[in-house]
């Protein structure tokens, strides 16, 4: 396995293109592990910087190589109203991994169990990316990024998040087999409330074995003066397609997901982002 160590973003993008197939190496908690099976060279981002948190008015920027722990501990982010994201990171119950894994890597890996990803979805996080050496950076939604062919995905420079409004309410629920395990089901929601009514809803779910996804049809059901959480939970459970694995059968995961969606929605309706 060849490892290329660029020192600039442009060089990184160039090496990635020249050495196809190649993959970006961020913190390495997936790519350096025995679970990484893809072939090709690695373009290491270790010498690029790309770390830190910046706040510009209502825009929050998190460098792609910022570790999950740094985000979790960032006072700037707490002040900017992103405690919800910070707690989602804490859900990943291994300090050793949070210290090494990066925000950009987490999104790029886009695994069903990546705890912060559903939170990023409901925060409408955008990715600041670099496609090629000449053009300037651009922004993509997480879904747009994931829709690209794996080897064509651009270098993630960071995440751009709009400061959530005062009326945004968050909820989150997860289940794992034990404290050290990845969640086999997770539901995260954001309800933007106005005078007791839900003006906009975002719901993201992750079930082990399938990628994290937003559930737009269910989100629509939630908008209105009295969101019907039972109906939404049922619809969410029906919308996902879990697979049976050592963490549970398909039917079990689906059932649990319905419970968790309801839990998350009730948390949000019950007064903000209490968990």
């Amino acid at each position, binding site marked *: 396995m060849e490892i290329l160590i660029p020192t600039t973003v442009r060089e990184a993008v160039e090496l990635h293109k020249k050495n196809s197939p190649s993959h970006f190496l961020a913190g390495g908690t997936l790519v350096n*592990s025995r679970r990484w099976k893809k072939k090709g060279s690695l373009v290491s981002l*270790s010498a690029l910087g790309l770390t830190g948190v910046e706040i510009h008015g209502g825009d929050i920027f998190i460098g792609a190589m910022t570790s999950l722990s740094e985000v979790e501990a960032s006072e700037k982010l707490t002040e900017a109203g992103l405690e919800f994201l910070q707690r989602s990171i804490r859900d990943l119950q291994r300090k050793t991994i949070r210290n090494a894994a990066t925000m950009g890597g987490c999104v790029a890996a886009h695994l069903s169990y990546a705890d912060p990803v559903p939170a990023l979805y409901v925060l409408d996080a955008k990715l600041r990316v670099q496609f090629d050496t000449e053009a300037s950076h651009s922004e993509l939604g997480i879904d747009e990024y994931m829709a690209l062919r794996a080897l064509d995905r651009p270098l993630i420079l960071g995440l751009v998040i709009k400061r959530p409004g005062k009326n945004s309410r968050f909820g989150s629920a997860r289940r794992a087999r034990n404290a050290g395990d990845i969640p086999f089901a997770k539901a995260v929601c954001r309800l933007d409330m106005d005078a007791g009514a839900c003006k906009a809803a975002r719901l993201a779910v992750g079930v082990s074995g399938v990628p994290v996804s937003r559930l737009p049809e269910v989100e629509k059901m939630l908008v209105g003066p009295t969101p019907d959480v039972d109906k939404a939970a049922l619809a969410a459970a029906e919308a996902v397609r879990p697979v049976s694995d050592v963490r549970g059968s398909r039917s079990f995961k689906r059932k649990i997901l319905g419970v968790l969606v309801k839990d998350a929605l009730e948390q949000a309706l019950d007064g903000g982002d209490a968990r």
Partner: protein
Amino acid sequence: MKVSFMLNGQEVTVETEADERVLDLLRRIGIRSVRRGCDNEGTCGACSILLDGEIVCSCILLAHQVEGREILTVEGLADGRELHTIQAAFLDAGTVQCGYCMPGQILAVKALLDKNPRPNREDVIDALSGNYCRCTGYERIFTAVEAAAARLRGEEGKVETPTYKRDCRIVGKSSRRVDGEQLVRAEPSYVEDMVSPDTLHIKVLYSPHAHAEIIDIDTSKAEELPGVALVVTHRNAPDVWYGSAGQNYPEPSPYDRRLVDKFVRYVGDRVAIVAAETEEIAEQALELIEVEYKVLPAVFTIEEAAKEGAPLVHRRDPSIDPLPIGQKAGSNLAACAEGEIGNVDKGFEEAEVIIENEYRCAQVHALPQEPHVVFTRMQSGRLIIHASTQVPWHLRRIVARVLGIRENRIRVIKERVGGGFGHKQDVVHEEVAAWVTWQTNRPAYFRMTRKEEFVSARYRHAMTVRIKLGARRDGTITAIEQTVLADTGAYGPHCLTVPMNASSKSLPLFRCPNMRFRTFSYYTHTPIAGAYQGYGAPQGAFALQLAVAELADKIGMDQVDLLEKVRVRAGDMLDIMKILGEGQEGIPQKVSSCGLGPALERGRELVGWDDEKKDDGRWAEGCGVAIIQQGSGLPGIDAANAECRLCGDGTLLLLIGGTDLGTGLDTVAVKIAAEVLCIDVEDVAVIAADTDVTPFDVGAYASSGTYFSGMAAYRAADGLKSLVLEQAARLLGCKAEQLSLAPRGRITGGPKELTLAEVAHRAQGGDGAGQLAAFGSFTTEEAPIPYGAQFARVLVDRKTGLVKVRKFAAVQDCGTPINPDLALGQLYGGVMKAVGHSLFEEIVFDGKGRVKNPNYWDYKVPMIGDVPEVFKAELVEVDDPLGPFGAKSTSEISMNGAAPAIAAAIHDAVGVWIRQWPFTAERVLEALDRQA
């Protein structure tokens, strides 16, 4: 490429490959504290380092990622001979057991305390959330962190522990373990630290089929690969049948395997062995071996194996087995036994209530952090085996058989063991390395990967236990029938004794005149089952204790009250033990002491048995209890020896055959000898478990350590005491009976006081009688039984089936705890393993006998976040007349109570009986759905 970084305060520049793992790089440059536990998936934390002050796994970091950064390992903590405060606190709190994962934990605590001088329990859980420890059960880590934090703040940071045995100076009081300092410093201790550079590395080609005949195997390409020294297949393997069970000869286990055989009997069975100059070459060579298999039909469950006409796992002649154990040629029955006391049928006729159910236990894994590992070498024509084993002498005997040589051509040196738990009682792979070295005259190293551990080591037996229980409405038990069906896997080490233990460690807990047991052990085409802490008792206890809980429910009696009524008591004669021998007639035992009464009383308090239980409609709380027992070695079978040699200055060399697996046996033996000779622990140096140097001991299994090896140490010390007093009497011109030993090596009662040093000098000098040394041997026909009560208080989520253990109390009668801290550590560790087995641990197979979860990613083990909010282990004071200073065994028993206690608590909470472990959320939810 070159990489530069700061390592423990020193700038280091190392030539490396960009993709070299930091773990490998650090070990290559002499850092031993980083250890591989999880095959590079970042799930266990054994390789932890502090990188710029943060705890990370070095196994998933590549060398170039540490360029210009700062690394701290445990080697950089101590200040010369002065331990770091955290290292000292870990020792003082009795946290250290096998020590293998301890460096990572110590670093995690350092990272925490550097930022947070007053951490709460949640902070500690978070800080250590990536560090897996199988030994400690984590609870004592909280104590260590509290002490370390206080000391770092300049406070006293004293660790309070209970004391026992007032008439003793040393026994019954906690002190640091004698090997503790080397472990927290990460000094060379384990087999992997002993490997020399010119060593061959061993890799094994494993069968992809559950059952097949090897029609052809072509190893020519592998043999031609430069760097390959030896390839072994069934064609050139020794034609010797042997058993891998590390039991005393004659073993009650079959001789049913060869080093490599023409038939493979499970996915993971050996097909070929390669020894090469490097691991990488050995792996390449494996890929060059071409094998033609004839795939044969297979059986994967007890039910399939037991069917008439089922495919046979073995077609062999059982007459070569050392003992008849009920094996039946032409079937898959590997062993069977049955027996009865009283009149069971009549007992059922007298019953007013009958409970009859079947209980199932899945295969689970012991998973010590250090995998099976061995290093072999030749010296002066003898084979030297550096082993991580519980049974040095059995290992020597089995290897001698495989190699066809005499035992005195082999020396086994037991290094520090990075966790054993019974898992290292078997000779799992040592004979492979021994054969390679014997054939090549080269050192050989075989360290199993985590995947190999999961697939080719040993499991706890899957069992189906049927219980029929008859009782009167007042709770009196009139009859018990227990039928145990066990899956021994493809080979039969312990195939009789583990399932029999399910009965012999569960039935004698109850006063019942009519009892019957039946044991049937079957071969299947699945990985091998073997010894594991508890040794069948957890499965037996789960079934019988839960059946008794069901009885309590049925007759409307409080579970604790029922157990108090029907439990065994001191002085009871256990006639059933006569029919529960291990391949031979057993010995009826009298209960020499029994702390069950106070244990039940105290556990009831600790867990809040009588407190109100919460139920908000979704989350419901419930309590459950189990009474448990184990043994203290095997009377009539086990044996231990020790020797005490007095040095010229009055200090002591203690040589014991006993095998410390991290359990603290060396410390226990030292304390016993020190107590007898009225000297301090520091005055005793222990040398243990070296077949050339120390005397014979059967090894560490069957909870024999404290009683057998401890009694041998006691007798050796007592013998030396007599010699000392006789020698002193000669010097003083008085009678030895007048004299006695007094604290700190003084001899009093004569015309003047002498010291041990004076006596020793005179004895070993030219005008003396020679060095004062005494030998102690211990065999017996009676052994004390440790008892305990374990209580669980759980919360069950009716919507998801999730079970949370909120409180757990383990109250133990281990007689006199020789070192209370270490005894408590054993309890906490055993309980957490059992909690894992009860709630989420389970080996999962696909339909072809392949393990679906052979790694820590998919097979979950308890982490610190799984520790109950309130987790209490306590020892009740019981002075037993048999053991050394009243001691009984401690460790194994702690595995036996969690499953039945938690299952009973689940029923108490939500009204469903879960009769199959683990009690996964899915299983509980299914039961709730059925109930609804």
